[in-house]
């Protein structure tokens, strides 16, 4: 059976009606799910609180092996709009830099491959990230222009087979996905898994990364995440998120949380529940939950705050009216 969201994602994003007709789920790669996953939900009322301390407390539970290692932070700077809340807040990026340096990382790099605009100088300057990078003397790598290597996709949710991916990411000792907590009009939600679209180099795949759209957005999300073997961590900026017509034109929604974990599907499922979204109704989360990570709440240990107590009902994207968690 063709999956409805697969059909819609490929069709709507690319304007490619029927592009994915007849595509079927391939056999799943080996099950990579842990018996149990842990996700830390940390309240944070604003970007003015001591975010470095907050992250250090949150990271304690995961004890990431970063001493003497290279950490690559991948925040969401897909685009910039002064009217919106598209991006991971620069203060949270700064706090992550400081936290990993305090944990004795040899180097912390910030990397992003913006998906819409080619003018990276503008995005960095206008968003305020450039000032943080300069002040903290952090190296920024434009993942759209980085050296690349061809990577075999382990899952087959798309027909792509391989993807060129940036060496900076592939050579990292720890990849930290730092998404914004947002709804997404083609994918339902955009969190730590969808954020990895930004590692796919636009110099090869375009602005926008239309090849991924035509292969099916949820399908591509799962394939990219399944392809990466390196250690990873997610730090989600949910202090102020975005609801409605995300990921660009939605409205700001203060959720007051930072969510941390090392199982991306588990982190994203937890974030979805905080947004009042049923993860089972988000294709890429449901598919990832079959082999890549845990989305069943019975297999997720929630550290710090109980996400049920922090739940908010984000307005869904206009073409996903039935995402609501019952």
């Amino acid at each position, binding site marked *: 059976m063709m999956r409805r969201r697969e059909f819609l994602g490929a069709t709507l994003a*690319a*304007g490619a*009606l029927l*592009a994915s007709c007849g595509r079927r789920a391939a056999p799943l790669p080996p099950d990579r799910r842990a018996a149990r996953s842990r996700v830390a939900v940390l309240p944070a009322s604003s970007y003015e609180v001591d975010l470095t301390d907050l992250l250090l407390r949150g990271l304690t539970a995961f004890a990431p092996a970063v001493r003497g290692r290279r950490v690559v932070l991948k925040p969401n700077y897909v685009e910039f709009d002064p009217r919106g809340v598209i991006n991971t807040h620069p203060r949270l990026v700064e706090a992550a830099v400081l936290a990993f340096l305090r944990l004795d990382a040899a180097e912390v790099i910030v990397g992003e491959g913006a998906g*819409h605009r080619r003018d990276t100088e*503008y995005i960095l300057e206008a968003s305020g990230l450039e000032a943080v990078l300069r002040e903290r003397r952090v190296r920024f790598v434009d993942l759209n222009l980085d050296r690349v290597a061809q990577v075999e996709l382990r899952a087959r949710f798309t027909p792509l087979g391989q993807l060129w991916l940036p060496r900076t990411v592939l050579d990292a000792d720890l990849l930290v996905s730092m998404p914004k907590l947002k709804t997404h*009009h083609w994918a339902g939600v955009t969190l730590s898994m969808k954020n990895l679209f930004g590692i796919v180099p636009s110099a090869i795949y375009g602005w926008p990364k239309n*090849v991924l759209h035509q292969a099916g957005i949820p399908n591509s999300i799962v394939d990219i995440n399944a392809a990466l073997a390196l250690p990873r961590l997610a730090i989600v900026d949910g202090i102020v998120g975005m609801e409605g*017509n995300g990921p660009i034109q939605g409205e700001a929604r203060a959720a007051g949380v930072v969510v941390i974990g090392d199982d991306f599907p588990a982190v994203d499922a937890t974030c979805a529940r905080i947004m009042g979204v049923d993860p089972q109704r988000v294709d890429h989360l449901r598919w990832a939950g079959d082999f890549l990570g845990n989305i069943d709440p019975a297999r997720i240990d929630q550290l710090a705050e109980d996400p049920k107590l922090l739940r908010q009902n984000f307005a869904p994207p206009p073409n996903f009216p039935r995402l609501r968690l019952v």
Partner: protein
Amino acid sequence: MSSTALKLAQLLATRRTPEAGYEAVAGAGANTESTALAALALGDAEACEWLLARQRPDGAWPLGDAVPEPSWASSWALIALAQAGAGAEPLAHGADWLVAREGWRPSLLARTIGALTGQRRRIEHDLALRGWPWHEGAASWCEPTASALLALRQLSTRIATPGASERALAGERLLWNRMCVGGGWNYGNRRVLGETIPPYPDTTALVLLALHGSARREEIAHSFAALERLLVAHASSLALALAALAHELHGRDPEPLRRALRERIERRGPPSETRAVAFSLLALDGGAARLSVPT
């Protein structure tokens, strides 16, 4: 050459590899677009040799040494080589490839189903129009269409390519169809799910540059007005450079934009990406003529 232009030329020189290719950023490895733009900006004959040596058997150029697939950067290779007076054979071979290349379009059946089911209302542009994609098999978008249009228009003075004028017209039609509400261009969506998508200054300037000589004066004027508004809030080096070039090619005064570009570079240093450096040098050092086409 002004001191600012000299700084830019010196920076470009640091991006040159021993084989005379140019890197997009330091350490990235030489690629076709950076090499072509540096060749245009510096008049580097060896960079043109680098390009000629890398033309694929099908006439296209790869993205760079690391990624051999035929790429959108072929348009810039053709523009640079045409300006450098390269022989007709590689130009004709490249032009044939460019004429044949087009973005993915849904079939008539798919478009009809889309219209009946309301899908087309979600993305409000004509999916049947033939532009150029970033990647093989993907849909058409504004920037690769603008650079392909510019390449075909420039080549038309050197060689006769069957189908080139029809393809150029088709590309032009696509660009007009994708023009944002109120003028200007972004990556290629004017409205999505009923929401207006705003234009970008750099893309607007690049498309205007490719459309110089167009008779659609009203849309051109609207788009220059949009560009002016956008530059108030968003004056990156790349945007200012492309805007200055577009102004000059449309017979408008580029000097205020050149001044703003010079001041910006003096204040905060040159841009980091080779593409922005090369366009800045072209804008400040009289390079617009190298992008002009017969009108």
